[in-house]
């Protein structure tokens, strides 16, 4: 080791022996985490073969015999699955339409705040819900909407004369409440990305707009928004790519038998079939999981490809 003058890599030119003599310690470092990574990330990936195999208890996680596409045919013929599939897309689409623009507007308005102290306060407070457990968020929501004592139930009753309802149980409020809590939890946090983009705008641009007679509102429309448009684009494409991945844990917490007609999404269906039902239909549930995983992969990679083509940026 002491013979080496420098750590500058000449990797391609040195022989393997010299190369390893110089860098074997990196591979030693990798040994444990890489084995761990393969065990916990890639072994379950191959565990998906269970979707094509019959499971028997106590014979390991990979099943006992091949059954081909039987489980796929089974769930594709199941109305419950298609209901979950529709619910997933609907909830995702509504969430995207509502909760995509809100952080952008929030970031733009935040940037327009004149008082630095107030801005800092709003930032600090609005990022915080992101770090609150979904259990806490849903528990608070349940209390606020409690038919007997909830503050919001009382407000709705006193101000609008609405009779107290068990809102958490009613199917027609489920999507609204899901989207609302997402807005509450993630608006401030998601705005960081846009705020960083707005921050990157050169003040000369605003200067020039002002000289041309643009007022602040016009500056937002003609300078701020067009400049952060690439960021908006890439965020949008990535969001579309993740259309199938909803906040599974939150949906599961909000799930009740009475709102299941709208709250049963693919992930909760997989969970109920695989881990909750008394029969533990592992193979069946794995097949559904694999199906949605592959669609998700296709969506993400094509949206990434699109993003790279259109904006030159992608996440890998």
């Amino acid at each position, binding site marked *: 080791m002491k013979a080496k003058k420098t750590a500058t890599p000449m990797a391609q030119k040195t022989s393997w022996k010299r190369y390893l003599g110089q860098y074997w310690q990196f591979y030693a*470092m990798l040994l444990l985490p*890489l084995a761990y990574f393969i065990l916990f990330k890639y072994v379950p*990936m191959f565990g*998906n073969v269970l979707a094509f195999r019959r499971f028997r208890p106590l014979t390991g996680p990979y099943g006992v015999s091949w059954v081909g596409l039987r489980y796929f045919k089974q769930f594709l013929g199941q109305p419950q699955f298609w209901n979950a599939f529709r619910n997933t897309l609907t909830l995702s689409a509504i969430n995207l339409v509502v909760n995509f623009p809100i952080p952008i507007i929030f970031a733009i308005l935040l940037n327009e705040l004149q008082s630095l102290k107030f801005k800092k*306060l709003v930032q600090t407070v609005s990022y915080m*819900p992101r770090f609150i457990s979904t259990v806490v968020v849903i528990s608070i929501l349940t209390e606020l909407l409690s038919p007997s004592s909830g503050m919001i139930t009382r407000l709705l009753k006193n101000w609008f004369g609405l009779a107290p309802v068990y809102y958490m149980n009613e199917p027609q409020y489920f999507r609204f409440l899901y989207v609302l809590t997402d807005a509450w939890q993630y608006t401030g946090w998601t705005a960081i990305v846009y705020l960083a983009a707005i921050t990157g705008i050169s003040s000369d641009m605003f200067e020039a707009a002002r000289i041309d007679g643009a007022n602040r509102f016009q500056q937002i429309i003609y300078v701020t928004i067009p400049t952060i448009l690439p960021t908006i684009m890439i965020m949008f494409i990535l969001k579309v790519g993740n259309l199938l991945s909803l906040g599974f844990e939150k949906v599961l917490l909000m799930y009740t038998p009475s709102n299941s007609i709208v709250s049963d999404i693919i992930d909760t269906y997989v969970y109920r079939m695989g881990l909750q039902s008394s029969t533990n239909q592992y193979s069946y549930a794995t097949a559904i999981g694999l199906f949605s995983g592959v669609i998700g992969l296709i969506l993400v990679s094509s949206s990434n490809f699109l993003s790279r083509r259109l904006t030159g940026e992608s996440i890998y």
Partner: protein
Amino acid sequence: MTTIAAASQKNHIRERSLVLDIVIYLVMLFALIVCVVPFLYIIAMSFSSSEAILNNKVSLWPVGFTLEAYQQIVEYPNFFIAYGNTLIYTFCGTLFALTMMVLFAYPLSKNFLRGQSFLMKLVVFSMFFSGGLIPNYLLISSLGLTGTRFAMLIPFAINQFNLIILINFFKSLPGEIEEAALIDGLNWFGILIKIVLPLSGAALATVGLYTAVFFWNDWFYGLIYLNSSQYPVMLLLRNIVNGTTMVGDAGGVGEKASVAIAVKSAVIITSTLPIILLYPFLQKYFVKGMTVGAVKG
């Protein structure tokens, strides 16, 4: 990367527009209120007497101040067990996760390392396609981890987003320092421990906080992998709220139902308190990950 605070300066040269400013202040005030009010309500509930709750008198301030709800959860042994479990998972889980991620990220930050780009592809691919719920569950149970605390401590150590934050940070360190240390006779392990890690406080804090928050907030993996004596506090809270678990008088009707609400509120407050209290001081580290570690391979 430009910081968010610095850019605010340029606003000061921009002219005022009264209407716009008023609208913006109102919107921001509304955002502030919406963020804070739910917590105020829960705090008020947790300190209020059951009569006040029963008569719908409580909104944002405790009515008939009492510590009864807190007394009840303190007398309930499972609460402390669950809280202790959460502390163990958060502390040990984060420590293990940081160790694994540092050992993984440091070699991956060296572009010259043979196999590095292949390993990066392996990492990135696993972000887009994963085993899914059932194969993961079957793996954990076939490893014999189900029903042991290790089911919580071991499987979640490497989070790819956090890993990439660390890799990008290590890449951003000036290579000259490492070269100098190499000449001084340190090996790569020594460089990592004595040179790189001491310079990485901010990145380690960011990644460590994200990991700690994950462990603190988890309830789902606790539900599918653990026995009830090993449950973390968030799972206990979930069970109390949906009525699976009764604490004190929780779950009763009438007078008792309002005690139940106070007890639930007290559990919400006590289980969230550490995050709410620590958050303002650690805020800069929380935000750092979002800006510094922009996810790029």
